[in-house]
């Protein structure tokens, strides 16, 4: 397995973005889980995660950056469950495919936003397929509609988060906190 050559600084930056993402998820997801509404956890978590991922992509910029952050997150979740690992990896692969093949990297804000939204949307169908194994046949059709609504909600909140992320990146660059290579 070979990722593009990242420097120590880039690996550390990606790791800390993931740590921040994990902190936010560890607060938000347990609050939403008891409600048992399909996609609610992802919808609530998406703006914060997307915002942090856009900041990460704006700094890293290389093809493979999305996959790197998703892999770090997924490997940390591997201990919790291989199932969660597979959801996150699916999202990461989709986000990376959009960024790398659609935009050839993450240089433009458009590429960063598209990749992050694809990542958030990609995680949910994997979870949805898994949930079908716990859904009685009679409920599959109505639940599929609920999942479609959830996917739209995830895309919307993720887009809002990604746009907020772009604004934060601009402010951080203006303040001299974030160095972005031309």
């Amino acid at each position: 397995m070979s990722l593009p050559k990242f420097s120590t600084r880039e690996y550390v930056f990606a790791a800390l973005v993931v740590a921040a993402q994990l902190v936010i998820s560890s607060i938000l997801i347990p609050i939403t889980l008891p409600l048992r509404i399909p996609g609610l956890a992802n919808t609530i978590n998406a703006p914060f995660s997307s915002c942090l991922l856009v900041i990460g992509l704006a700094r890293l910029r290389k093809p493979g950056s999305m996959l790197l952050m998703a892999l770090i997150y997924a490997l940390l979740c591997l201990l919790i469950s291989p199932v969660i690992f597979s959801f996150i990896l699916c999202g990461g692969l989709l986000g990376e495919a959009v960024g790398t093949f659609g935009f050839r990297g993450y240089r433009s804000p458009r590429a960063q936003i598209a990749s992050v939204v694809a990542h958030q949307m990609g995680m949910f169908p994997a979870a949805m397929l898994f949930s079908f194994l716990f859904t009685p046949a009679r409920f599959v059709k109505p639940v599929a509609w609920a999942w479609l609504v959830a996917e739209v909600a995830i895309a919307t909140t993720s887009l809002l988060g990604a746009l907020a992320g772009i604004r934060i990146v601009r402010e951080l660059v203006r303040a001299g906190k974030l160095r972005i290579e031309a």
Partner: protein
Amino acid sequence: MLPLSGSQPVTVIHRLHPLTKIGCATAVTGLALALNRPMALSPLLAGLLLVMLLGRIRLASRLLLGLLAICALVAAGSLWASGDPSEAARYGLRLLIVAATIPISASTTAAHDLVHGLARLRLPQGLLMAVLVAWRFFPVIADQLRRISEARLLRGGHCRFGAWHRQLMLPLAAITIDHADRVALALEGRGFDVNAKRTWYRPPTFHFRDVMSCVATAAVLMAAVVLEWR
């Protein structure tokens, strides 16, 4: 449930290789999703309960009750939908088995043991280092987030919905960037190079107990398969 931050191995389950635990959990989860007869699912659940007993894994009563309530809700929903108790038991047991695998790895494996175990899979060294950094800095970032929230309250500010990114995410991002710069500088100052070949002080190795646990898991899986297609 988040993995251990560091622990001394106390039971045979704690001493197992992390990849053994993950592999066995994956096999049990995969088979539980493929089996349909409740009778076939029961050996898997019994095996997991035995592992939890051996590993002295205790779940908080609130967590346990919540989990059982969710499984009961799924089973009751299935019973209402299909009117078939067998189908209800199938969905309830499936969910219980998938949930029961979670604390086994999470509460008996430290993050650094997982990373040492993953080193055997020849993943990039930088990726493994990044997993460790993310894990080590989880409590630091959590503490910083609490401070951001306290500082905002001290200033008498209430979080406006439209300004969440400015009030919460902007300071969090600035702090994260500061930490990243400092950690990277400290690593580079100590001559750390992600692209250099790295050795591990004490890499976990596969022992006889790992082989035995794989054999025991295979036996339970076989029993479940036999009960399914008998």
